[in-house]
């Protein structure tokens, strides 16, 4: 006998998680995510903090480096300034030496040109230094040069090439002894062009022939030289103006109306001292 089910009911016995358990799982997962998020945030914060620290460190390093560079630049700047100052001092000293050498050269030249006799006369006069005496001569010579058509030696100095040549030298030669002096100066300038500026500057220095103040003073002195009374007073010390030259003066000669600035060829016959001259004059000699 084959027997089988007449009635059949399918059954299933299983369990599913309760809502409490599902909620717990969901909450645990959410907590895990939040924890992960917190960790991510914390990590991000730490990373940000590290980056900020790195940036701060970089800035600090940068500022320190800038500061060092500024200090170094300042030191270098000071060093450079000191070096430049030293170089400048050296150049100044060198320039001063060159100027001194040039002055000495010019002084020697002018001294040679002025002649020993005049120096002796000036020394006898004892009123002025030889250089001023010589300068007076040059001033007179310049006046003579002006009279002979050379307007201004300074113009020549500014443009020597335009005046170079026999024409100029010949013209200066015709100007008399001071023209010759000027020609000699010009010859120096021509032969050594690098010196012309130094020569001109020397002539234009205070107390030198090309200096305007000095020339005015000399003109005044020269004009005084034509007045015998003033000349006498000047010699005797009454005049506040000190004469600069006794060149060609003949004591007691009533016809003497000029001085040696006009003509250096006048024979100098008297080398008597000032005091003796005064005595001689009043004695009617």
């Amino acid at each position, binding site marked *: 006998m084959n027997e089988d089910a007449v009635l059949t009911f399918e059954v299933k*016995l299983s369990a599913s998680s309760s809502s409490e*358990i599902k909620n717990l799982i969901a909450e645990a997962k959410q907590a895990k995510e939040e924890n992960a998020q917190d960790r991510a945030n914390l990590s991000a914060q730490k990373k940000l903090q590290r980056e900020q620290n790195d940036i701060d460190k970089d800035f600090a390093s940068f500022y320190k480096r800038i500061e060092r560079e500024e200090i170094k630049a300042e030191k270098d700047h000071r060093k450079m300034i000191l070096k430049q100052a030293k170089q400048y001092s050296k150049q100044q000293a060198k320039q001063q030496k060159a100027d001194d050498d040039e002055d000495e050269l010019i002084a020697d030249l002018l001294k040679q040109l002025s002649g020993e006799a005049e120096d002796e006369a000036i020394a006898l006069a004892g009123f002025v230094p030889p250089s001023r005496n010589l300068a007076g001569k040059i001033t007179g010579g310049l006046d003579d040069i002006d009279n002979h058509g050379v307007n201004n030696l300074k113009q020549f100095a500014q443009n020597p090439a335009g005046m170079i040549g026999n024409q100029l030298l010949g013209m200066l030669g015709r100007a008399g002894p001071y023209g010759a002096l000027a020609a000699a100066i010009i010859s120096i300038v021509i032969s050594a062009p690098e010196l012309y500026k130094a020569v001109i500057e020397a002539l234009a220095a205070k107390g030198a022939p090309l200096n305007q103040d000095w020339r005015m003073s000399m003109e005044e002195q020269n004009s005084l030289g034509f007045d015998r009374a003033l000349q006498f007073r000047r010699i005797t010390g009454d005049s506040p103006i000190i004469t600069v030259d006794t060149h060609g003066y003949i004591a007691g000669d009533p016809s003497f109306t000029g001085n040696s600035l006009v003509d250096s060829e006048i024979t100098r016959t008297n080398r008597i001292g000032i005091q003796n001259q005064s005595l001689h004059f009043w004695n009617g000699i």
Partner: protein
Amino acid sequence: MTTLEPLLNESIRKLEAVEKKTNEYLDKHMIRFFRNFVIPEMKSVAMAMNLPPEFADGIKFRKTGKNTGQIINTWGGTYNSSGKLATPLALWFNYGTPRHWIAPKNPDGVLTWIAGAGGRNASAIFYQGSAKPGQRMFSKGHYVSGLPRTEAMEIGLERGMKRLKESIAKVSEGELKDE
């Protein structure tokens, strides 16, 4: 990884494992549970509904798969030569039968029964006013009113599953802890 994350992972793992472990436990003890709680309840229901003992005896459980099974009733589960159930009695007593004609299989035979015994399968149609309770009756064929619809299997199954749910929590509590 912070100290909190392993704890959370462990908690999630355990919580998610509860369902799986419970189902494994139920699958493992499914036969026992049904035999102990569901089948007896269904038999009790059948008996209470005054169904034949064969009906209750035919109620059985068989496991068909993971966490699945069948409640069957095998009463009358005999196949004839054509492969059909000859008399599915459990089916008839569970879902009832309509009014129908009955006659003896042997053309020369008769149907017989005791009248007035309150028999369920005695047709009132053939109750004759002259018949007295206890009187033997004979018939060459007659209509019967059919069996009433009891749904004893459904009712029993419902009550049985309810009992299973109530009992299984108590039973499985200690066992799940042990496992």
